């Protein structure tokens, strides 16, 4: 794949190009557009890049060879950026236009991490025991998470790590004992570090990560004890199959369910598979070998935080030596622990479900709630083989997701796209307006409350099942009536919709404790409401706002007339109002 195989659409200009029909949904046009989407999707190349092609669904229209590649428009570049990362600034848009999607992604894949979460906690003094209780107080984990999301370069890596954190879920909520902030930081850093690595490596690292060990109980997991009837903890064995690799039912390459002769779905595993696999995850515990004990803060010594990073320690005496039979794989009795783990993880990694299972959920996180089976199949194919015989190449998977024909042409369809997650909304708004901290603390607390916060907070999922399920269907909706999924709607209700708008209203003007926005980029547009709305439309929504919405916003802003002589307060009120109106608009909130 190279940067010449760009997906382009014919555009005369960057002028408003998305006209959202306000007439009622019509079954026939919905069906037609769906069919069009599928036609297009199946026309894409297997690698997910696709040929240069127009979005015209008429198969007799111009073919790839007859259309010269056209430069990307700002709208296209912004739309791509808002899927691949959090922001679409002028510089970023220019960069994508000049290099094309592929080369731009390559440049982002090559960026190194400028500061890890653990490094930030350390330099901020949160890893030396202090009287503020930093060695047991989880809130520094929240500050760390927001600092990581809101600052630093390498946004693509962070956006994808956030998506991974909603697949390989570890939550700060239940983590207690010493150094919860460092435990969660080291988990985040692992996802961030390995976001461009291989799925298999990532799977092994998360399995042995200390925070995951605590969260899903591999930490301290003991072999069976016949005398007392004690059996290994099954939690990790169950969830690594159900949630991290293969899922509950056998899948086709395109993510659809396989069925048996009776037409029923086929279960991937049964209880005995879990009971067997659980033996593999025995014998692990936090590694205290490098820890030093510090005294003077409590009546008990406080360990230094080295145990929170790297891998858990393995104690063969506590590891089950029983044979393991699961998913048709046999691990003989007395197989050494590391070898048993290798075989088990290879089995899960190489299972035919893992590609489509992971591919579909990552597409849902980044692009659209209801990808076509063909789109899933294209990405799963790349998961299975990156073109060079490598399975699980995450860079190839991200590239396949983000450059796919379907990802690049979504906005033509009235069931396409997804609800932007609250975390992503806030991060986008904050970064777009040059967020900074007045004192370096990044004192943003757990925002999980839907009434006073965002209803979602990074690394704070209520359970390993994430904030929302990939199969969530909002009841009593047309979405449900059409048999479609809308995962993020699990967070949307009468409370959270109000809570978000209130939060954003407050945040854009007052920030959140020491965390403040800087609107200098749009200050000069205060006296030109149309230009202001156009600026916000491009940078926040990739020009998704309809002309009706843009006009409504513009007119409401102009109701309080401004001139260059107007007060700074009046000008800023207009800026705040404009951002609020865009950020609260359904045409922004639904990312297409």
């Amino acid at each position, binding site marked *: 794949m190279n940067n010449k195989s760009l997906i382009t659409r014919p555009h005369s200009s960057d002028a408003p190009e998305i006209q959202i029909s306000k007439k009622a949904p019509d079954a026939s046009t919905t069906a037609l557009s769906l069919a069009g989407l599928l036609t297009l999707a199946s026309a894409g190349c297997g690698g997910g890049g696709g040929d240069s092609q127009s979005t015209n669904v008429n198969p007799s229209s111009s073919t790839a060879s007859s259309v010269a590649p056209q430069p990307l428009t700002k709208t296209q570049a912004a739309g791509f950026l808002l899927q691949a990362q959090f922001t679409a600034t002028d510089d970023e848009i220019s960069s994508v236009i000049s290099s094309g999607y592929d080369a731009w992604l390559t440049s982002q894949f090559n960026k190194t991490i400028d500061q890890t979460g653990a490094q930030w906690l350390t330099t901020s003094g949160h890893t030396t025991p202090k009287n503020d209780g930093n060695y047991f107080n989880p809130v520094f984990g929240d500050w760390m998470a927001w600092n990581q999301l809101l600052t630093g370069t390498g946004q693509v890596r962070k956006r994808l790590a956030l998506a991974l954190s909603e697949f390989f879920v570890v939550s700060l909520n239940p983590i207690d004992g010493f150094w919860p902030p460092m435990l969660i930081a080291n988990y985040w850093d692992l996802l961030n570090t390995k976001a461009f690595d291989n799925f298999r490596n990532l799977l092994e690292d998360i399995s042995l990560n200390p925070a995951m060990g605590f969260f899903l109980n591999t930490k*301290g997991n003991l072999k069976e004890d016949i005398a007392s*009837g*004690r059996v290994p903890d099954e939690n990790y064995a169950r969830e690594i199959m159900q949630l991290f690799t293969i899922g509950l039912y056998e899948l086709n390459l395109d993510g659809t369910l396989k069925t048996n002769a009776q037409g029923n779905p086929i279960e991937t595993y049964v209880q005995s598979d879990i009971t067997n696999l659980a033996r593999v995850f025995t014998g692990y515990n936090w590694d205290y070998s490098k820890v030093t004990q510090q005294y003077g803060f409590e009546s008990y010594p406080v360990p230094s935080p080295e145990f929170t990073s790297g891998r858990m320690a393995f104690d063969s005496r506590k590891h089950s030596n029983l044979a393991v039979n699961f998913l048709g794989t046999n691990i003989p009795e007395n197989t050494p622990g590391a070898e048993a783990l290798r075989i088990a993880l290879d089995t899960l990694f190489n299972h035919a479900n893992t590609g489509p299972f992971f591919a579909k959920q990552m597409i849902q996180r980044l692009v659209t709630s209801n990808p076509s089976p063909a789109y899933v199949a294209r990405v799963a194919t790349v998961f299975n083989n990156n073109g060079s015989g490598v399975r699980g190449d995450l860079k190839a998977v991200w590239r396949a997701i983000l450059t796919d024909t379907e990802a690049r042409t979504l906005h033509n369809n009235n069931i396409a796209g997804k609800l932007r997650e609250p975390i992503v909304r806030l991060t986008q708004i904050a970064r777009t307006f040059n967020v900074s901290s007045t004192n370096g603390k990044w004192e943003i607390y757990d925002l999980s409350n839907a009434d006073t916060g965002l209803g979602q907070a990074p690394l704070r999922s209520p359970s390993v099942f994430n904030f929302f399920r990939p199969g*969530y269907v909002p009841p009593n909706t047309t979405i449900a*009536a059409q048999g479609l999924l809308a995962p993020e709607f699990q967070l949307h209700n*009468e409370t959270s*919709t109000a809570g978000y708008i209130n939060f954003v209203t407050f945040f854009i003007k007052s920030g959140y404790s020491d965390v403040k926005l800087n609107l200098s980029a749009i200050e000069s547009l205060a006296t030109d409401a149309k230009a202001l709305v156009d600026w916000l439309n491009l940078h926040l929504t990739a020009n998704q706002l309809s002309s009706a919405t843009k006009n409504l916003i513009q007119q409401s802003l102009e109701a309080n007339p401004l001139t260059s002589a107007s007060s700074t307060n009046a000008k800023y*009120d207009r800026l705040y109002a404009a951002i*609020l109106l865009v950020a609260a608009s*359904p045409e922004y909130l639904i990312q297409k």
Partner: protein
Amino acid sequence: MHINKLNEMTRRAFLKRASTLSMMGIGAPLALNLAGIGEAAAFEANDYKALVCVFLFGGNDHANTLIPFDTTNYDLYSTIRGGGAGRTAGGIALGHDSLAATALTTLTPQTLTNNIQYALSPELKSLATLFNSGKAAVQLNIGPLLTPLTLAQYNSPDRVRYPLPPKLFSHNDQQSIWQALNSEGATRGWGGYMGDLALSSNNISTLTCISASGNAVFLAGNNALQYQISPSGAIPIWAAKGSAFNSSSVSNALKQLITQSSAHLWENELATVTKRSMDLEESVNAALNPVNLSTSFDRDSKKNSLADQLKVVARLISARDVLGAKRQVFFVSLGGFDTHDGLNENHPRLLAQVDEAISAFYQATVELGVSEKVTSFTASDFGRTLASNGDGSDHGWGGHHFVVGGAVNGGQFYGTAPQISLNSDDQVGQGRLLPSTSVDQLAATLASWFGANTSEINSILPNVSRFASSNLGFMK
């Protein structure tokens, strides 16, 4: 004021989905048995009744919730759970002495399996008092079932005659099955179906099914919606209430933008919920604000989110006449019950919250004079293994649950007590209970009390007729 009455579009949308599902050959979920739902008979309620589902997310460890107290069965429990010598606590077993204050005494003598007698967890003191005074009942070994099953039938390869609920032991799916009798992706729950029957009895139909927790499929019916309330009441969108950044025009534009319909399904649904939120906020808060309960929901100054949720439910019930409500279904929840590790530390802390919240809620209904009109019941993903994994227990199936209220035939156990064993024929391994009562039967019993007639119950719960009884008898 009739906001959100049965609406033709929703009904048609549902029928369309139903036919789509049929064409896809998907086994008929309970919904499809509700032929002509829009015209389904709805009861006309003149009195007030409310049903409250208290969901314990994560799978409650039933074996340390309801513990054998007679020494014979206690000793079996203690051996399996690693108890200490002299019936002291050990492993994940509670000590026998610690159970004396919460031993349960039935109002009339009852002989259970192997003459088992029970105590509640030491943390459930108030619940034990409610049981012993006849205001709470225990439903033994209940869980999702499609048909009654013996162990041999469970092990039978004949899944046509002996179907199993899908995705057993999986959290998200069993949560969904408890609430909606189908796995994840289900869009209609049995609380919602009861709400459907009650919609026309309520002045504001949207306030029929209310969650004080997150979105819950339990509350979604064919027409009944899950309305979300926060513990502090309905949340106003301040910027849409007349002025935003010193501009009424901006405020008006905001109101229009966030509530207007759209051809894009996602945008339209987003706005629909926001509009509902705004339409009801002022009337709900106006009704709630004057309510001043003297019952305390905070006996120990510790954070208790379940108590906060049940408090707003009690306040809504207090405001029932102002809001014109005759029949309501509520959903509240507490998470953290997935006690694979740290059962001894975490489970008592959680049960203490359950005890505080449920007993305070019952007291509030006494204060409001509606204790016989309000019934709460517990539910959870599943019970857990009786076997220990060292310091916790694993995912199971059947578990024990509570039904609380003045209309409950309390001070009694219902259902069949399981043996305290890892190899008896009432469990499927490691002490995972094979349920002897189905969730459908629990739902049918509650629906009957709520006012649903037999044909309505059979349409809401099409599988209930496969079981011995559709009324378990725990309601007066």
